[in-house]
């Protein structure tokens, strides 16, 4: 192949124009022929200026959490990494974010903390008392195992009806699915069933028939970012009357 043809192949590869055999050939050359790899690198460097013209699109707030979940079992991440990151709005945000600090201030302050915590609870209830959508999650025995309530302000909570604790080395992971093309999205992680605000910030509002489920996953969450373990409970959302 002439040098000009090799460069042609490299340029069409970088533009994404190759398909089938030509694509396979170019990929093989990149791996096996460092001078061809250099031609490809040169074209990438020439063209990447066009990538810089793309509009900035802020990613969904849970995208980083999903990436981190996919990196494998979290070694350093806290059991509920969302709490450290997912920003909440307004006054509750500042109070909420100070929760970890409360833990450190010792016994004397814990009573005050309790009062504040109750205050937040009242505030949240005041905000949106009645769920708009409700999903009853049934176990494989068809027994109600948990309820998901989605409120008018977007807040979505999971309320357990059955006590389940994950065995050693496992976690319980909550998923939702509203669009098969996107696939299930992780919205919560815990070691034992407890009331939990689900991480649905920036997901579309819960809709009728949207699926919620809890699966058993390796500790720290599914390594693939998709459910891998058995489904412990699942249910579809319905409009609350």
């Amino acid at each position: 192949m002439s040098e000009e043809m090799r460069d042609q192949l490299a340029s069409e590869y970088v533009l994404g124009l190759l398909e089938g055999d030509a694509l396979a050939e170019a990929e093989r050359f990149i791996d096996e022929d460092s001078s061809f790899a250099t031609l490809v690198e040169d074209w990438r460097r020439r063209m990447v200026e066009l990538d810089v013209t793309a509009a900035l699109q802020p990613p969904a707030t849970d995208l980083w959490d999903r990436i981190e979940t996919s990196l494998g079992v979290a070694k350093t991440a806290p059991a509920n990494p969302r709490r450290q990151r997912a920003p909440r709005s307004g006054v509750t945000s500042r109070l909420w974010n100070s929760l970890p600090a409360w833990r450190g201030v010792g016994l004397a302050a814990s009573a005050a903390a309790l009062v504040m915590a109750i205050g937040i609870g009242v505030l949240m209830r005041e905000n949106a008392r009645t769920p708009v959508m409700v999903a009853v999650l049934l176990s494989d025995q068809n027994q109600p195992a948990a309820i998901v309530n989605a409120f008018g302000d977007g807040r979505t909570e999971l309320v357990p009806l059955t006590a389940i604790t994950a065995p050693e080395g496992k976690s319980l992971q909550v998923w939702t699915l509203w669009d098969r093309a996107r696939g299930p999205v992780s919205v919560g992680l815990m070691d034992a069933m407890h009331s939990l605000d689900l991480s649905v910030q920036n997901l579309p509002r819960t809709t009728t028939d949207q699926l919620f489920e809890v699966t058993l996953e390796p500790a720290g969450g599914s390594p693939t970012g998709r459910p891998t373990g058995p489904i412990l409970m699942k249910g579809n959302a319905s409009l609350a009357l």
Partner: protein
Amino acid sequence: MSSTLSHTALPDADLSRALQGCARGDRASLRSLYDRLAPRMVGVAMRMLRRRDLAEEVVHDTFVKIWEKAASYDPARGEAATWIFAILRHRALNVLRGEARTDLVDDFEPMGLTADEPDAEALVAALSESGALRRCLETLDPRRRDIIVLAYTHGLTHGELAGRLRIPLGTIKSWMRRSLLSLRECMA
């Protein structure tokens, strides 16, 4: 090596250091790449895939890949940003050409011809005035320049370009070859 992306506040030395951090297993390094690049990456993937959910999935996969492959990044062979965007584009093209093809067709056609020609022009206008790519693209005949820009930014194939611009496939292919050759000579 010229710093192609320097005007976008992406000092390559920082990105390169962050990749070295990823290779050591430092998640904060990956996070710093995410904070600085993710919005642009979603933008690039959106141009190709047109759907936010697919674009974010591609960005997700790209960061997982960066984490896994960071040790194989060699600063001597190219800039860190180029390396990262190459992974992103590769993944986006796979989605575009493969698994989501049928899903995309419906969204794809109605946005068709009317929007595209000014789009290519606007894309060129958005390039840095001092950059070699803009200077060299501007030496090309507008329609021959547009096919390069549309192929790269929207991931269009020869066939799609032919269909949308109503130009015979053989003509598109030969224009593409000659335009790329001119571009290379200009940018060498």
